[in-house]
């Protein structure tokens, strides 16, 4: 453009200023577009403007509570990546009105009940399964019991297709969701092949919820029909006897049937005794051979040292009898031979 203007014979100074302005405009425009492109996903969904305040990492609830101020920050980048990233905040945070600061309309309702109802609105089947679980029983008896968000989290729920979970995801859920409360059970299951294989990336290997159910959270006792059903998902031929396999045995099998402990004790002892005896025998054999080898080498070393000593003696002799320096070879050689022979 600028070049064409110059050809037409416009004054050069004016042309330069104009094109510089145009360039600035173009750069600014591009920068704006870039900013929009980056900020768009977060900005577009935050139609209610919640993230204006909640997007600030330092945003805290200053109401005096135990354990210091509570963070009200929501990481918008993580939220956008989550499965609910398309939804508006009020899709789940029901019953809030747009005032500053925010207040819950129905103050009678517990936050946890609101949270459950929010999930139920879109996931009624999961909610029905949860209702029959021991988790729900615990929650309705005592509000400390786990609700949806206790396991699933809230703003960072991953986009996962049911039945196509990666091994990494299954492992993470077992460790961070189930294992957070059932730490002992998770630690024991870690010693079993299922979780060991899962840990190495075998996504078909069962983790906690593959047997205990996603929302039903069955207790699963050996010999019971639901346990057989749980096993049959992967082992079609499983029968009641099969379910006596124990998935959560303590280290050293302390909580196992005495037969398991006896076998463990016997084979561990055998392992140690046989290896110790074998390695001891080998070591003793090695010391004999080492002495033989050193003996052979000792001869060689003896010859070498003998030669050095002979040289030394020769040097003494030559310094003592400096007149007879003409034939130094002969005595040295004979000296070396003598030492070597000895």
């Amino acid at each position: 453009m600028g070049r064409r203007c110059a050809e037409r014979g416009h004054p050069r100074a004016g042309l330069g200023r104009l094109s510089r302005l145009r360039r600035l405009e173009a750069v600014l425009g591009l920068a704006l577009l870039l900013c929009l492109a980056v900020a768009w996903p977060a900005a577009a969904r935050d139609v209610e403007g919640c993230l204006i305040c909640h997007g600030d990492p330092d945003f805290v609830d200053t109401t005096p509570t135990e354990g210091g101020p509570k963070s009200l920050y929501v990481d918008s980048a993580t939220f956008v990546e989550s499965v609910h990233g398309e939804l508006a905040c009020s899709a789940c945070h029901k019953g809030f009105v747009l005032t500053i600061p925010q207040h819950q309309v129905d103050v009678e309702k517990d936050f946890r009940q609101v949270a459950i109802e929010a999930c139920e609105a879109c996931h009624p089947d999961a909610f029905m399964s949860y209702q029959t679980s021991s988790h729900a029983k615990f929650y309705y008896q005592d509000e400390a019991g786990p609700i949806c968000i206790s396991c699933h989290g809230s703003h960072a729920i991953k986009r996962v297709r049911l039945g196509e979970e990666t091994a990494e995801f299954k492992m993470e859920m077992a460790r961070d969701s189930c294992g957070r409360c059932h730490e002992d059970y998770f630690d024991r299951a870690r010693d079993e092949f299922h979780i060991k294989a899962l840990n190495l990336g075998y996504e078909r290997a069962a983790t906690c919820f593959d047997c205990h159910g996603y929302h039903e959270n069955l207790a699963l006792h050996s010999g019971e029909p639901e346990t057989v059903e749980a096993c049959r998902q992967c082992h079609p031929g499983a029968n009641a006897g099969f379910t006596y396999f124990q998935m959560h045995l303590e280290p050293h099998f302390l909580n196992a049937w005495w037969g398991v402990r006896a076998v463990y004790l016997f084979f561990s002892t055998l392992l140690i005794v046989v290896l110790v005896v074998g390695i001891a025998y080998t070591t003793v054999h090695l010391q004999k051979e080492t002495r033989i080898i050193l003996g052979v080498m000792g001869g060689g070393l003896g010859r070498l040292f003998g030669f050095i000593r002979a040289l030394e003696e020769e040097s003494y002799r030559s310094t003592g009898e400096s007149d007879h320096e003409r034939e130094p070879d002969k005595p040295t050689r004979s000296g070396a031979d003598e030492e070597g022979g000895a």
Partner: protein
Amino acid sequence: MEEGKDYYVRFNWYHRLSHFVMMTTFIGCTLTGPPLKYSYDFWAQAMMNFWGGVHNAGLIHRVMAGFMVGVFVVHAIYLMYWVVIRKADVFGPDSIFFRKKDLYDLIGMIKWFFDRGERPRFERFTFWEKFDWFAVFWGIAMIGTSGFALWFPTVTGQFVSGIFLNVARIIHGDEAILAIGWILFVHLYNSHLRMNVFPLDPVIFTGRMPVEHLKHDKRAWYDRLVQEGKIKPQ
């Protein structure tokens, strides 16, 4: 083989093939099994990735195990053939079964280690060779049985309680570690690294042993072979 040297064929093609298949399948199982047992150790993931994941490693492990058990079965038939049909002397000098002389040889060997006597005059199989043979027998019986139980868990469940799968896991892992430790620390030294054969005894691969070596290593057998006119005295 060197020209102008007398050799004696100690192992026939069957012995050599058995050892070769046993060795390769053992290495195969050793490289695919332990990463699962030690899943949380730093090297496990790299080893699994080398095989292309847990599924492939499991497949290789099972194929190897199949061949190894095959060697075991064929060997059992071979032994039956010698004992039942050929009426071999089970406790004779040519036998691989333990006999009283092995105990004396062991004591003699320990005396020799501490300069309290001459090196024993060994027969066709030394006691450590016999023990390695016996250990393989015991090991395959233990690891093989427990391995099959774990391979087909629901079939196992048809016959015994599921708790025996826990038992099988203990036996399989412990015996495997024992076998690996034994091969690494005892078998490799006694059969390949000791002074007489260092750095490798090729007899199990070539089948042929220089008569000169035979004379030094297994004197009783050498004397017997000379007496029987099977080899020329050196």
